[in-house]
């Protein structure tokens, strides 16, 4: 440095002595450039950086939210699937039970109906038998009286006596037929 300074001094100018105009122009140039940087360039770049960071982070957050939502939906579907399977099983069981019950009911009803019909038939038969017995009693009495009167003639025309005889006869008949039925 010293060497250069001496040499330069010999030649009339030192490289270390500044030209003040150059110094001022440099400071002014730096100031102007700095003003532009602070006022326009830096805010624009910082804004872009911030916006980009936000966009990327926002995108990631959105993707995470979507992922979480999808997971929730999947979980829900699985849950629903399990539920619907259980439901189907339950319904099937119920239907089976109900079917069995209906069948049993129907059987019972049919049995009751058949019992009722049988009972009715019995009653009717009994009634008809009674009617037949009653009508037979009257008819047989008349026929027997007619027959007896024809056989014994007018002597037996007295109603009171003949009625008593007939009744006694029929009672005997009944008794014998009843004892015969009991024996049977």
């Amino acid at each position: 440095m010293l060497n250069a300074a001496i040499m330069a001094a010999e030649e009339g100018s030192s490289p270390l002595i500044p030209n003040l105009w150059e110094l001022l122009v440099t400071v002014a140039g730096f100031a102007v450039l700095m003003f532009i940087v602070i006022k326009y360039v830096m805010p624009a770049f910082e804004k872009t950086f911030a916006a980009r960071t936000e966009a990327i982070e926002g995108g990631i957050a959105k993707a995470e939210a979507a992922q979480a939502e999808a997971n929730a939906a999947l979980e829900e579907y699985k849950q629903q699937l399990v539920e619907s399977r259980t439901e189907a099983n339950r319904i099937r069981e119920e239907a089976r039970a109900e079917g069995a019950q209906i069948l049993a009911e129907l059987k019972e009803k049919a049995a009751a109906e058949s019992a009722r019909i049988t009972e009715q038939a019995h009653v009717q038969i009994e009634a008809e038998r009674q009617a037949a017995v009653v009508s037979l009693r009257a008819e047989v009495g008349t026929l027997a009286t007619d027959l007896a009167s024809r056989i014994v003639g007018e002597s037996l025309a007295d109603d009171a006596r003949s009625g008593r005889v007939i009744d006694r006869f029929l009672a005997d008949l009944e008794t014998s037929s009843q004892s015969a039925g009991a024996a049977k």
Partner: protein
Amino acid sequence: MIALALPAATTEEGFVPPTIDDTHYRDIFPWGGEYGVWFEGGFGKQMLMIIFSVILIATFFLMASRRNALVPGKMQFLGESAYGFVRNSIGKDIIGGRDFLRYVPWLFTAFFFVLVNNIFGAIPFLQLPSFSHPGSAYAIAAIFYLLWVGIGLKKHGLKYFKLAVVPSGVPWYILPIVVPIEIISNFIVRPVTHSLRLFATMLAGHLIVTLAGTAIEYMVSTGSILLQGTSVLVLGGAIAMYMLEALIMVLQAYVFTLLAAIYIEGALHADAH
């Protein structure tokens, strides 16, 4: 400096070595700025180039930052990368903390101001790194000197000077030696080296290229076959030096900004050192 001394030995043999004044390409205005004069001289090429660099940098970054798109185009990407480099690799990594952004414009402006002006030295016809003139180098180093001293005073008050020159953990009996050294190194050597490093590397590179050019011209004009033949070697060497110089131009812009960031950081956290 060796480059300056060497050609002096050859003067007697007819070679006229270039002086520093010869490193000036012809001034744009005939009364152009000269070395070693204070307010004499006028509006030289170097000043014009400084202004040109301001226009160039401002135009580029204004255009690059204008669109402000989320997905950048080529130009915006380039501008963003350049800005992001200074912002993150220098500002954030060195200064750090929450308020490094406040100092990014200083570093950003300095880096591209120095870079573009240095690269001017590698462009034919411009062929002059603006910071090979001491005035500019002193000016930009002084800006940062005032900046970091100001930051230190604002942050720590007058205590800053004590924090800056009295290292913690040093035994009291060594302090009389350490304190003067710290004063000299921090407040005198630091700004001087900050400016001279930039200025000297630019001037040296510029001188070497000038010297090689002058030498080739001389060797070719001698008419001696030997000298004309060996001038090819000089040309090869000159091209290699030119490439090296281009690398140094970029490197020095980075170094200058990096040191500025380190000084700012040192002033901000003077109490931690």
